[in-house]
């Protein structure tokens, strides 16, 4: 654990950039390639890389298992709630046109929130599966 200095320093340099890239992919998905799914996977990979270098215990302090498992259904709920919001504001299910004052803006908001839901579910699912697999190897 103490000997892999190069790995630890490189990870320290690369981890913030990975997280930043995930956020970029998430929020720039309207204009460039990417979106909630890809950003979620990159964010999940950040946590997994941290776990690979610094150990599972240290990672579970930063990203607790309970939080991850609560986030998995939360993303789906955010997505579905956006759809219900479409119903409440007078449109069809998942119709974002009435979420804001004008229709185009409402669409932008809807896509933004929905992508956020996808991001949350994908990222936490990836981390949760990794925790489950890696946790079995210990002890």
């Amino acid at each position: 654990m103490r000997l892999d200095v190069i790995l630890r320093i490189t990870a320290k340099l690369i981890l913030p950039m990975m997280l930043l890239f995930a956020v970029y992919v998430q929020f720039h998905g309207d204009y460039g390639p990417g979106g909630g799914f890809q950003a979620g996977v990159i964010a999940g990979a950040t946590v997994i890389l941290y776990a690979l270098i610094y150990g599972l215990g240290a990672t579970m302090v930063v990203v607790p298992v309970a939080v991850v498992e609560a986030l998995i259904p939360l993303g789906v709920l955010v997505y579905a709630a956006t759809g219900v919001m479409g119903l409440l504001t007078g449109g069809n299910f998942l119709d974002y046109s009435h979420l804001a004052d004008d229709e185009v803006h409402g669409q932008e908001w809807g896509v933004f929130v929905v992508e956020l839901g996808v991001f949350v579910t994908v990222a936490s699912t990836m981390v949760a599966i990794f925790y489950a697999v890696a946790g079995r190897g210990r002890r």
Partner: protein
Amino acid sequence: MMLLSMLAVTTVGVVRARNLFAVAVLSGVYSFLMASVLIVLDAVDVAMTEATVGAGISMVLVLGVLHLTKTDEARPVHRALLPLFVATVTAAILVWAVSALPPFGIADAPIHVAGPDYLARSLAETGIANVVTSVLASYRGFDTLGETVVIFTAGIAVLMLLKRTPSGRGGESS
């Protein structure tokens, strides 16, 4: 062409190799090659997904599972006849399904009608420049909700199978 032949070679390698570590690495190579093919086809969003999921996450997960098992593939206990039969039938059904697709290169195929339609409408209606995103999250929002639920279901299914509960119950077989 170059990429496709490399893909074919990698596939043969995956099938032939008995060492599971080699298989894991080769499937990562396969994913990166596939991502390159998708970039050549201008499907950048899908290429990104393939590179991150196929070559990134699933590699780590496969290696993690490999840590729990032996690294060499066991000799098959059964004859391969039944799997061969299932694979042949599935392939036949897929080939049969291809016959229901619109003829190749026909002008009024959905891709030539709906595609330009989306391209023309997307920016004006949703204000989103990347048509992939607007189709995915707005026009086909219901499909994407289904996909998210699929990921959610897969996640909790894996957790149910693998998770150790803090009290020591469940999955504590060994």
